[in-house]
């Protein structure tokens, strides 16, 4: 299968191996918001894993020539190696429930034959409001307007 637009072959392979091994993770942050139509820009794709200590993650990463690098001094936990550069690991989501609770609020985005779990726009907005960093303050109004627009599209009755 040709790589879908945003991902290189190795990035796609990494995601597919994680999904194939049934690792529980979701896309969060602004990349998740853009997947749902929010007009914001981002430089990376944030992934939130339920349990970073899960052996399935290391096995999946090994399979594609990547590795998990645990946090040290000033460096947050990260993925390194083939196809890993695009992805950032998120270890804390402000203003949200547990991973399992938020997993229920995910939307599915098709990635070939598999489905990628993506945190819903509503919950992304909640996390940005709770985090309230300077960069979040810039995106909050945009996410709020995007949510209003997407909800209006969902409510639109289908033509018969």
């Amino acid at each position, binding site marked *: 299968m040709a790589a879908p637009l*945003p991902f290189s072959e190795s990035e796609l392979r990494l995601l597919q191996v994680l999904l194939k091994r049934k690792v529980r993770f979701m896309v969060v942050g602004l990349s998740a918001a853009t997947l749902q139509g929010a007009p914001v820009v981002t430089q990376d794709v944030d992934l939130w894993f339920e349990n970073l200590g899960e052996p399935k993650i290391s096995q999946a990463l090994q399979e594609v020539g990547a590795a998990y690098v645990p946090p040290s001094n000033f460096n947050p936990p990260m993925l390194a190696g083939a196809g890993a550069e695009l992805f950032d690991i998120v270890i804390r989501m402000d203003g949200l429930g547990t991973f399992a609770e938020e997993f229920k609020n995910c939307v599915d985005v098709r990635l070939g034959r598999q489905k990628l779990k993506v945190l819903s726009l509503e919950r992304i907005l909640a996390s940005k409001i709770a985090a309230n960093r300077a960069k979040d303050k810039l995106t909050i109004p945009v996410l709020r307007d995007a949510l209003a627009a997407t909800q209006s599209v969902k409510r639109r009755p289908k033509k018969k």
Partner: protein
Amino acid sequence: MESISFHRRMKNRVQPIDAATAQRWARRLTMRVGKVLAAHPQANPDNVRHTLILLEQPPLERLQRSLIRGRATAIFRK
């Protein structure tokens, strides 16, 4: 190689449309923006319009656009 196939895919997505179709699309879009703003008067019309346009694209293409612009902005800042 990657960039050649990317450009080919992008080129294939550009479909010729006539002026009347474009105008109909723009009118429909304006109407939809108006409906959203009627329900959410505090919303920014540009944000609403851009969201509605992006919703016409497949999710992965939306992410692609966002990453391209995000990286371009980062390069410009350096």
